């Protein structure tokens, strides 16, 4: 609908690079790299910041694992922390709780969410729909520059008196609502303020994504021709737009409880602790899907490319994403089965939670269907995507145990949930992120990552990831509670200590292998092989333009003739078919579109255009 309107009236004003061809000049360093409005640069900025937080969150995890395996023993190497955290390298319980809180906060809000939504949303939406940039480039810039102070505030909270927030990333009241209970006052308030500011960043991004996808698709790019990445990011943006304001409201209420003497969540003056949990999880469960839907999109894209096959059941894949987005709003109570909520509600939420397993199952079966009968190229992104399928199956199946309310009585708040959430967030989201980064790295930086080191990183990560997290299911079944500073204090957990030591060693190796990825990521920017426009022989629009694409992306607006997964089309000489490659009969009538890539792959010099 809107796509055809665009065709009739090419809206050049949407595309600063074209409108400004005659007046375009090289932007200053600040406009190009810092306050950039180019969606590709903003994606890279999000990438840099979220990889930093990924590393920071991983470092916290390492220290936590040290304490869990060797409670009370001084950490090697890390003996420089102040005496309020770890005097002589010995971690204090209050610092442990701060690390529990900040590991979750960093990973969820400052690593996985910006990696999936901030990086891939920004990078892929304009490129894959044939647009020159986002609908609101300046708002997009603000989206990034609101995330930065939020991150700085969160980091600064480690340095204030009382330390960083220590009530868990879920910040359950009243523990979080009154500093009396934790000794953390300012740290908790900074946590609340930081997430509140970050919320504006997310909302600005979501508004941009939704508007851009609805209004700026290239001519011929109908809804059912969209790459699944765009579908997933579009639905995710809707979830973000609706869920973040709920969190913002809850954060403000908690902040005023902390600072102004209100008592929304403090029972002694009439408040209700369960209200926080309802508000938090009414945001928090859609958030869980915000953290996995874009991963679904990336994996679909990469699996089809690796298998050289059309994605199996495209429409079912879209419907499954939409179904998850709807059902995701009515399952939040499964986080609260043990909270003291009316048990009748527990039953209701059990049924909705069981049902939401169905669209996830549909996705898994369609991924398997995509591989069936393929001609599989085991490139690095494909390895990560295939691992995603394997690990997401485990994370999905372990969720069924907790969906059953009676079984959840035993495993709620134990290491079983720690295993489950890491199978979904690490085995799921993060493996998809590795697939996405390695797949689109050439589009971002114009060069390939080193494949050998990437394969070593993949094998090490896959093995040690499973060795680290799979045994946690067993610890949970034995009744090991989560967020424990020292499990050996409990008699029945002290017996399990060899497992904790084993897991800690596995995590050490797991983190070690990530160093390989980080080094490869940085060095490949200079040493990587030049990628050319379409190194994976893929179909979607971003592969029809140079790597990296110039400012404004497309020289002329591409015309789309088909969906994004037309691999191995019978009768076609190659096993891929770009979305904007004219059909044979059309080619006779039309001139070759200008955006077709120069076969030499020469991408850098675009003359006066830049």
């Amino acid at each position, binding site marked *: 609908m809107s796509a055809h309107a665009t065709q009739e009236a090419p809206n050049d004003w949407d595309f600063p690079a074209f409108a400004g061809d005659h007046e375009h000049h090289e932007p200053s360093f600040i406009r190009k790299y810092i306050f950039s409005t180019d969606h590709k640069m903003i994606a890279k900025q999000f990438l840099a910041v979220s990889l930093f937080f990924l590393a920071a969150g991983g470092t916290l995890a390492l220290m936590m694992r040290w304490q869990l395996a060797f409670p009370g023993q001084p950490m090697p190497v890390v003996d420089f922390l102040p005496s309020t955290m770890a005097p002589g390298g010995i971690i204090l*319980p209050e610092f442990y*709780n701060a690390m529990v809180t900040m590991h979750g906060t960093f990973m969820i809000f400052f690593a996985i969410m910006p990696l999936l939504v901030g990086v891939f949303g920004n990078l892929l939406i304009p490129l894959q729909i044939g647009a020159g940039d986002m609908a609101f480039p300046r708002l997009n810039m603000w989206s990034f520059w609101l995330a930065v102070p939020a991150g700085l505030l969160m980091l600064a909270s480690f340095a204030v008196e009382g330390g960083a927030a220590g*009530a868990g990333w879920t910040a*359950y009241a*009243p*523990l979080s609502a009154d500093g009396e*209970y934790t000794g953390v006052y300012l740290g908790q308030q900074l946590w609340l303020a930081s997430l509140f500011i970050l919320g504006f960043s997310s909302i600005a991004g979501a508004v941009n994504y939704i508007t851009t996808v609805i209004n700026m698709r290239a001519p011929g790019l109908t809804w059912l021709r969209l790459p699944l990445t765009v579908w997933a990011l579009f639905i995710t943006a809707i979830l973000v737009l609706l869920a973040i304001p709920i969190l913002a409201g809850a954060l403000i209420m908690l902040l005023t409880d902390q600072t102004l003497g209100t008592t929304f969540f403090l*029972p002694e003056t009439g408040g*209700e*602790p369960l209200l926080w949990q309802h508000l938090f999880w009414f945001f928090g469960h859609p958030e869980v899907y915000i953290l996995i839907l874009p991963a679904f999109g990336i994996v679909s894209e990469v699996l089809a490319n690796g*298998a050289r*096959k*059309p994605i*199996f*059941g495209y429409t079912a894949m879209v419907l499954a994403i939409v179904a998850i987005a709807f059902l995701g709003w009515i399952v939040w109570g499964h986080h609260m089965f*043990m*909270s*003291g909520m009316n*048990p009748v509600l*527990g*039953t209701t939420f*059990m049924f909705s939670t069981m*049902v939401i*397993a*169905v669209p996830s199952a*549909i996705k898994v079966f*369609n991924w*398997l*269907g995509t*591989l069936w*009968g393929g*001609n*599989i190229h*085991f490139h690095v992104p494909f390895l990560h995507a*295939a691992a995603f399928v*394997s690990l997401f*199956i485990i994370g999905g*199946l372990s969720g*069924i*145990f907790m969906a*059953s*309310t*009676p*079984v959840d*009585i*035993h495993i709620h*708040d134990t290491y079983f949930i720690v295993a489950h959430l890491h199978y979904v967030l690490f085995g799921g989201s993060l493996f998809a992120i590795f697939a996405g980064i390695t797949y689109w790295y050439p589009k971002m930086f114009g060069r390939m990552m080193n494949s050998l080191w990437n394969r070593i990183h993949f094998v090490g990560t896959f093995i040690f990831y499973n060795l680290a997290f*799979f*045994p946690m*299911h067993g610890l949970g*079944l*034995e009744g090991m*509670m989560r*967020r*424990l*500073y020292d*499990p050996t*204090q*409990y008699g029945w957990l002290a017996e399990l200590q060899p497992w904790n030591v084993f897991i800690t060693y596995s995590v050490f190796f797991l983190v070690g292998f990530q160093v390989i990825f980080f080094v490869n990521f940085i060095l490949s920017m200079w040493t990587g092989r030049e990628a050319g426009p379409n190194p994976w022989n893929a179909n979607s629009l971003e592969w029809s333009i140079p790597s990296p694409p110039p400012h404004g992306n497309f020289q002329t607006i591409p015309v789309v003739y088909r969906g994004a997964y037309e691999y191995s*089309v019978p009768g076609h000489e190659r096993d891929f078919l770009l979305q904007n490659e004219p059909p044979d009969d059309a080619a006779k009538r039309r001139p070759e579109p200008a955006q077709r890539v120069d076969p030499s792959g020469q991408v850098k010099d675009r003359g006066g255009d830049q």
Partner: protein
Amino acid sequence: MNWLLEPSVSTFGPEIDRLYYIILVITGIVFFITQFLLVYFLIKYRKREGRTAAYTHGSTRAEILWTAVPFVVVLMLALISKPVWDEIKDPALFPEDAYEVTVVARQFEWEAQYAGSNGEFDADDSFTVLNRLHVPVNQPVIVHLESADVIHSFFVPRFRLKQDALPGRSIPMWFEVTEPGEYELGCAELCGLGHYRMDGLVIVHTEEEFEAWKAERLAAAGGGVTGTERAQAMTGEESR
């Protein structure tokens, strides 16, 4: 690692364990089939010179099949879970001849409050015990769970019992233990810096043992200093 659960010692424990094993078998079957297919496809359809991938966009029949079957299976799991959940958590279905005790959780201890000989919790000989919950075997026990500060969670793995303690509310829960002994109690909800050492014991006595223990404590409380008397002394009030 061990997928088998340590034997439970409560009356409803075996029902939870049965559900757990049913889900373990079903998810286990799905796990092995899907992982096998994944690995099998990866090997069978690996890149070969001259091979062309099948050009197919899917199958409506397959979609219907793999939507309907999981739907029926998870619905069945929810249906067989519901009665067990109701039996354990629905106060309307609690056993009637239960022995009642109050447990107050606070940073970082459990306080069990026992009624006096007249059955009242504020009687002269009512008493409290810290971090030890004494209960009789083979008799239902209802615990009124409260919290004095933040949220805690009462967790006895061998009973298959967990319940959050909420400040401002008294939440009833019940259990009936089938074997005398000492069972460890832990806090399952992050409650502050001492969360890791909030351990306690549930001590399950035979009926005679329990009566003897209770009589002894009642006598001690009636003659000695009780919680009630402590409170009265603090406010300067005289009783009776």
